C-alpha cells in the first residue's frame, strides 16, 4: 500500500530532488538549515514557507480538478477573504471573529461557484471566471481601493509567526493537506469524487449525489483559498485588493498538473499536488538563489515546467508502452517460430485504438 503510493509519487519526488540538486550546484549552502531566535532558518525553510499559498490552493484545486472542473477564482477569493479579515480586524471585531468571517466568505464564494457549476450546469472554467473578474472589484469595494493595513499581532502570527520553530504558514498547509488527504482516503469521499470526475452521469445512476458533492468540492476550494488569503494578508499586515493572490490560480493549477493529476478528472493525489507546489516554489526561489538575473526567471520557469510536463505527457508514455509491447510481440513471434512449447495466448493482441490514443 505504502509502496504503491510512493511509486505514484516517484516522478514528483525525482523532479524535486533533481531540482534541489541542480540548485545546490549553483548555491552550495542550499540545504543548510540553522536554528536561531527560536525558529528554523535556511533556503529550504524559505521555500516551504513561501510555497504556502500555492500549496494551500493546490489542495482545494486538486479536488476540483478531480471532478473534471477547474477553479479560476481562487486568487480573487484570496483577495476578498484577506480584505474581509483586514476590514473586520481594523473595525475592532477581534481576531477570532475576523478569521471566522474570512473563512465563511471563502465558503460562500465556493458555494456560489458550486451552484453555478452543479445546479445551473455552467462549464467550470466560465463559472469561476465570473467570480475571478467580478471578485477583484468586490475586494476593492471592501478596501475602498486602498491597501487596508492593520496592527493586530495575533492576526500577523498566521503569516510570520512560528510553531516549535516551524513557520506558521507551513504548519497551516501541512495540517490542511493532511486533513483533506485523510478525509478523502479514510472515508469513501475520495472515491466518490473520482467517480464523479470520471463519469458524472454514471455516478448519479449508481446513487452518488453528484450535485451536493460538486458544491462541497468548490466550497473546499474556497475554504483553502480563504486560508491562503489569510496567510498572505497576515504576512504583509495589510489587504491589497489588487495584488493579493494575483495569478496564483495559474500556479495552483500548474502545481496540480505537475503533481500528475489529469485535467480530465478522475484519480487524484493531494500529496502529489503539494509536491507540485513545492517544485514550483523551488524553481522560483532556486532561480534567484542560483544568481540568475531576475529577468530570466519566467523563461527558465517556463522551460523547466514544460520539460517536466512533456516528460509526464500521456502520449510519450503511451509511445513508450507501445515500443515495449512491440518488442514483446516480436519476442513472442520469435518464440513461436521456435518449438511450440511456450504458452501461446499470453500475449494479448493490442488494438490499434489503444496504442494510438
Amino acid at each position, binding site marked *: 500500500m505504502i509502496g504503491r503510493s510512493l511509486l505514484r509519487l516517484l516522478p514528483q519526488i525525482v523532479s524535486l530532488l533533481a531540482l534541489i540538486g541542480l540548485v545546490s550546484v549553483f548555491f552550495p549552502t542550499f540545504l543548510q538549515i540553522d536554528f536561531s531566535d527560536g525558529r528554523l532558518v535556511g533556503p529550504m525553510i524559505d521555500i516551504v514557507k513561501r510555497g504556502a499559498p500555492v500549496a494551500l490552493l493546490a489542495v482545494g484545486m486538486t479536488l476540483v480538478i478531480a471532478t473534471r472542473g477547474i477553479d479560476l477564482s481562487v486568487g480573487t477569493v484570496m483577495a476578498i477573504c484577506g480584505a474581509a479579515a483586514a476590514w473586520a480586524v481594523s473595525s475592532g471585531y477581534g481576531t477570532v471573529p475576523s478569521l471566522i468571517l474570512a473563512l465563511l466568505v471563502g465558503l460562500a464564494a465556493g458555494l456560489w461557484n458550486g451552484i453555478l457549476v452543479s445546479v445551473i450546469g455552467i462549464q467550470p472554467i466560465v463559472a469561476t471566471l465570473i467570480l475571478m473578474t*467580478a471578485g477583484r472589484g468586490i475586494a476593492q469595494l471592501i478596501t475602498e481601493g486602498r491597501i487596508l493595513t492593520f496592527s493586530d499581532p495575533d492576526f500577523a502570527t498566521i503569516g510570520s509567526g512560528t510553531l516549535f520553530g516551524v513557520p506558521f504558514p507551513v504548519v497551516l498547509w501541512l495540517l490542511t493537506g493532511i486533513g483533506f488527504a485523510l478525509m478523502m482516503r479514510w472515508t469513501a469521499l475520495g472515491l466518490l469524487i473520482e467517480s464523479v470526475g470520471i463519469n458524472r452521469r454514471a455516478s448519479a445512476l449508481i446513487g452518488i449525489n453528484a450535485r451536493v458533492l460538486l458544491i462541497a468540492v468548490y466550497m473546499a476550494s474556497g475554504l483553502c483559498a480563504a486560508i491562503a488569503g489569510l496567510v498572505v494578508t497576515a504576512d504583509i499586515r495589510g489587504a491589497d485588493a489588487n495584488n493579493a493572490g494575483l495569478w496564483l490560480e*495559474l500556479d495552483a493549477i500548474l502545481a496540480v498538473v505537475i503533481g500528475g493529476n489529469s485535467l480530465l478528472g478522475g484519480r487524484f493525489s493531494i500529496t502529489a499536488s503539494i509536491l507540485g507546489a513545492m517544485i514550483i516554489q523551488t524553481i522560483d526561489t532556486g532561480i534567484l538563489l542560483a544568481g540568475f538575473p531576475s529577468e530570466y526567471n519566467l523563461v527558465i520557469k517556463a522551460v523547466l515546467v514544460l520539460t517536466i510536463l512533456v516528460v509526464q505527457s500521456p502520449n510519450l508514455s503511451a509511445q513508450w508502452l507501445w515500443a515495449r509491447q512491440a518488442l514483446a510481440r516480436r519476442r513472442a513471434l520469435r518464440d513461436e517460430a521456435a518449438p511450440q512449447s511456450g504458452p501461446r495466448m499470453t500475449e494479448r493482441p493490442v488494438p490499434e485504438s489503444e496504442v494510438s490514443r
Partner: protein
Amino acid sequence: MTINTRLYPLLATIAIFVIAYALSYTQFPAMLSTRVVGNLLTDNAYLGIVAVGMTIVILSGGIDLSVGSVIAFSGVFIAVVLRETSLHPLMVFALLLVLSTAFGAAMGGIIHWLAMPSFIVTLAGMFLARGAAYMLTIDSVPIAHPFYDLLQGAYWLMPGKGRLTLIGVAMLLTVAVGALIAHRTRFGASVFALGGGEQAARLMGAKVGRTTVMIYAFSGFMAGLSGIVFSIYTGSGYPLATVGTELTAIAAVVIGGTILTGGAGYVVGTLFGVLTMGLIQTYIVFDGSLSSWWTKIVIGLLLLLFILLQKGLLRLSQSRISAGHA
C-alpha cells in the same frame, strides 16, 4: 418567424449593446457623438483584434492563455529592435508576425502531438512570452520613429470631430476577415467541426493535427497584430503591459455569444462583446462618481447574464429538437 436558434445569442448581444448605449445616451446625450464612437473603437482596437483570434480558438473548443504576454512581447520586441537597429518598422512588423505565428504554431503542435490540454500548454506559453519580454528589457521603451508618428496621426475626421483612427479601422477589418475565415472557408469549417468533437471532426474528414496547429498559429498571428496596434496606441513597449488581457478577451468572446465548449458562435458577436465592455468603461468615465472597480463587477455580472441566457436558449433549442423527433 424562422430565425435560427443559433442566432439568438448573437442577437441578444447586439440587443444588449444597443439598449445599453440607448440608456447611456438618455443620461449623457454626448455619448452618441462621433468622438465617443471613435474613441470606443480606438481604445479597444487591440482587444478586438486579439479577441478575434481567441474566438477561433474557443470555437475549436480550446483556449489560449498566452495572448496577453504575446502582446506585451510584441510591443517590447518592436521598441527594442527599432531602438537598436535601423530597420524600417514595416520590416519589424513582418518579423514579429512571423515570430508570433510560429510561436502559436509550436503551441498548437505540442497540444496535438503530445496530447496535452491547451490550458496548460498555453499557460506555459504565457510564462515563456512574458519571460522573453523581460529578457529583452525590463523598462518601458519609448518608440520614436517618424513612421510611427505617421501611423499615430493617421485618422479620418468624421462629422462631429470624431476621429476614426487607423487602428480602429484595422480592428474592424480584422473582425471582417476573421468572420470570413471562420464562416466561409474550409479551415473555418474544420474549426467548427473540431469544436463539435475531435472524433466527429476526424470522421468528417477534417485534418485534426493540421487544423489544431493552424488555429493556434492564427491566434498567435492575431496576438502579434494586436501587439503592433497596442504599440501604436501607447507609443512604447513595456514588458508588464496587458497582463490579464487573455481573460478579458475570453470574457469578450463569451459576452459575444460564443459557447465556450466550442462549436457554436459568431466572430461578429465578439466585436459587440468588446464594444459592450468598452461601453461600460466609457459610461463610468462619463459618470465620474463611480469607481473603476465597478467596471469589473458589472463585467462579471454581464458574463453571468450571457451565460444564463445561452443556457436557457440551449435548453430551448434542445427541447424543440426532441419535440421535433417525437
